[in-house]
């Protein structure tokens, strides 16, 4: 009987205590036989035990959470005393007491029990319905075709928590044939979701709907070093004798990336392999490239170096080099070794420059500046001086010469073909010459120079202009050049003395304030820097005020514009008003002038 009862109540074990008890109440009459059998134990305890024992006696997967210990113990005990307790009171009253006292918290637990068992219970009677009610409630939207009927209210609480995970389950698994696995899944997910009320339902099971899964974008770290190495490798691999076109493009970026921190070194995309010798503006990259070429590559790399060098400078003097580029292309195709030589003078030129140490920064400037200036001078002074200059500068650079020297003689012959451009360039590049190259250079230069003087003079105006900007740019670093320095931005009127003195005295007022606010000793240079900053600040200030006044349609700057400016600067905000600042920082007399204040006689000053 006990087993029979236990078996009969297998279904009861699934649902909650309440449902079980209710069922028991409904079927209370059928249980009378039990009374006869056993009558023992205290009423309350028995009452508690009976429904729980019924629940627990059956081999359930019920993992009792709340009542776990108590219920289990009671269950064990009740297992023995199952039927006896009922005799004390009417089962209905007992069960009613239990219903009243039994907490509803155990609702959670039964879910796991409910879910696994739904399938076998489907066929059963309404009892099962209640047990499966929770499951049904959660899954209705997912599985309309489920045979489970909507259940009791008790499972309603589970509904919310389950929904997300169960939904996820449902979405992932669609409408599976068997409910059990789903039940299991939902059970596990339920437990997990129960643990965290709003647990992110991220694929506890397989994600069959990848769209729902949120995977973080896989980001592969780019190894810059490897990338550059690859570039070099490819460039080297491509560095075949005939392939001058591609290699420079490949190599240069790597070179420039690694060595050229100079903003002037232009990325040479589509550089024509212009072995244009006459490239005066040799940057230090050329020197470096030359060195590398010597070490790594064959002579064929020479033209590549040329290309490097040729293109590094063009930006600096775009006007003059434009023609050179065009020419260079034509030259390159024919004269591989020859290309090298125009670069040499430029290299030498760079070499002579002070910062030969391969600091890209100054080199392009220097080379261009020097070349520019020298280009100007020889035009004026004559060609002979160029050779001398070249001689001097050639001494400084040694490495490049060796490689280029041999080619120097070759180029002289071929250069005549492109005399015009080369002449112009060579005239521009007065120095370039390292030891060996000097000779060849000297040989070349007199030949070319003599014939090109007129040509050079024709080009003079063109070259002068581009020469000047780079030269002025370089002047800051190179004190050699006699060209006039750039004018300071604020000196507009002639006669610096009368202009700056009152201006400086006015500024010194604020500089003194600065040193007062700083409360620390300051260097003189720092004070000068502060002056410059104040200058800039005043410029910005006036511009802003003009904009504000124009925005208001006025030609007079009013205090409202000032207030707007301070608001935009963040000095005035809702917490701090302009008046507050005036009070804080300005002396009283000014405050009286700025902030309206009422006076006797019904007057306000300043008038609003």
């Amino acid at each position, binding site marked *: 009987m006990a087993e029979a009862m236990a078996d009969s109540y297998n279904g009861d074990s699934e649902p909650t205590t309440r449902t079980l008890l209710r069922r028991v109440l409904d079927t209370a009459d059928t249980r009378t036989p039990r009374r006869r059998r056993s009558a023992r134990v205290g009423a309350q305890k028995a009452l508690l035990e009976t429904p729980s024992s019924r629940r627990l006696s059956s081999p359930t997967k019920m993992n009792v959470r709340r009542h776990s210990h108590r219920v289990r113990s009671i269950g064990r005990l009740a297992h023995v005393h199952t039927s006896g307790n009922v005799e004390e009171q009417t089962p209905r009253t007992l069960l009613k007491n239990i219903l009243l006292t039994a907490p509803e918290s155990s609702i959670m637990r039964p879910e796991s029990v409910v879910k696994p068992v739904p399938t076998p219970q489907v066929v059963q009677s309404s009892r099962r319905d209640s047990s499966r009610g929770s499951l049904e409630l959660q899954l209705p939207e997912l599985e309309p075709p489920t045979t489970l009927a909507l259940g009791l209210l008790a499972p309603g609480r589970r509904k919310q928590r389950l929904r997300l995970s169960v939904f996820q389950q449902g979405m992932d698994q669609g409408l599976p044939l068997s409910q059990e696995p789903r039940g299991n899944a939902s059970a596990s997910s339920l437990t997990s979701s129960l643990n965290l009320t709003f647990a992110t339902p991220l694929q506890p099971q397989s994600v069959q709907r990848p769209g729902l899964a949120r995977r973080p974008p896989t980001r592969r770290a780019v190894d810059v070093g490897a990338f550059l190495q690859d570039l070099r490798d490819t460039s080297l691999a491509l560095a075949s004798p005939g392939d001058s076109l591609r290699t420079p493009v490949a190599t240069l970026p790597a070179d420039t990336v690694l060595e050229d921190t100079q903003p002037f070194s232009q990325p040479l995309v589509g550089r024509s392999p212009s072995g244009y010798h006459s490239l005066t503006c040799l940057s230090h990259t050329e020197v470096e490239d030359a060195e590398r070429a010597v070490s790594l590559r064959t002579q064929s790399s020479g033209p590549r170096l040329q290309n490097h060098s040729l293109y590094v400078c063009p930006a600096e003097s775009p006007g003059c080099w434009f023609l050179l580029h065009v020419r260079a292309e034509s030259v390159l195709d024919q004269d591989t070794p020859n290309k090298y030589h125009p670069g040499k003078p430029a290299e030498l030129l760079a070499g002579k420059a002070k910062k030969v140490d391969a600091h890209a920064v100054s080199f392009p400037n220097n080379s261009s500046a020097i070349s520019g200036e020298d280009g100007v001078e020889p035009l004026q002074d004559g060609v002979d001086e160029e050779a001398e200059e070249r001689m001097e500068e050639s001494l400084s650079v040694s490495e490049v010469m060796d490689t280029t020297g041999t080619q120097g003689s070759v180029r002289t012959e071929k250069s005549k073909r492109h005399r015009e451009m080369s002449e112009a360039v060579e005239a521009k590049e007065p120095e370039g010459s390292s030891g060996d190259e000097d000779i060849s250079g000297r040989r070349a230069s007199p030949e070319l120079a003599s014939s090109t003087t007129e040509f050079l003079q024709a080009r003079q105006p063109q070259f002068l202009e581009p020469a000047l900007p780079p030269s002025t740019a370089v002047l800051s670093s190179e004190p050699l050049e006699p060209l006039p320095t750039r004018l300071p931005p604020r000196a507009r009127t002639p006669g610096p003395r009368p202009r700056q003195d009152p201006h400086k005295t006015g500024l010194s007022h604020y500089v003194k304030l600065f040193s007062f606010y700083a409360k620390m000793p300051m260097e003189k240079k720092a004070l000068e820097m502060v002056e410059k900053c104040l200058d800039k600040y005043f410029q910005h200030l006036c511009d802003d005020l003009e904009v504000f006044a124009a925005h208001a349609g006025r030609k007079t700057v009013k205090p409202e514009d000032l207030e707007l400016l301070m608001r935009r600067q963040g000095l005035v905000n809702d917490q701090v008003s302009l008046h507050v600042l005036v009070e804080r920082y300005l002396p009283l007399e000014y405050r009286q002038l700025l902030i309206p*204040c009422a006076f006797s006689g019904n007057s306000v000053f300043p008038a609003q």
Partner: protein
Amino acid sequence: MAFSTTVSQRKHIKRKAPRGFLKRVFKRQKPHLRLETSGDLLVHLNCLLFVHRLAEETRMNAFENKCGVIKKEHVQAAAKVILKKSRG
């Protein structure tokens, strides 16, 4: 009775505003514009606040570098930040 717009001679204002200087600077920069009477006082206030912020930032830079003396680099770095802030 309205207050006088001028300050009496005997009063000595501490930290006077170089009103003439400010007016001259503005006129030189924007000759086609005018500046109102009290405007230059507010300009002076703006300058004070700017210098104040600049000094604070410079001091911070100097402290960070553990220098007891303010150097040009500190001022330069501070100026970059503060000028950007004061752009409006």
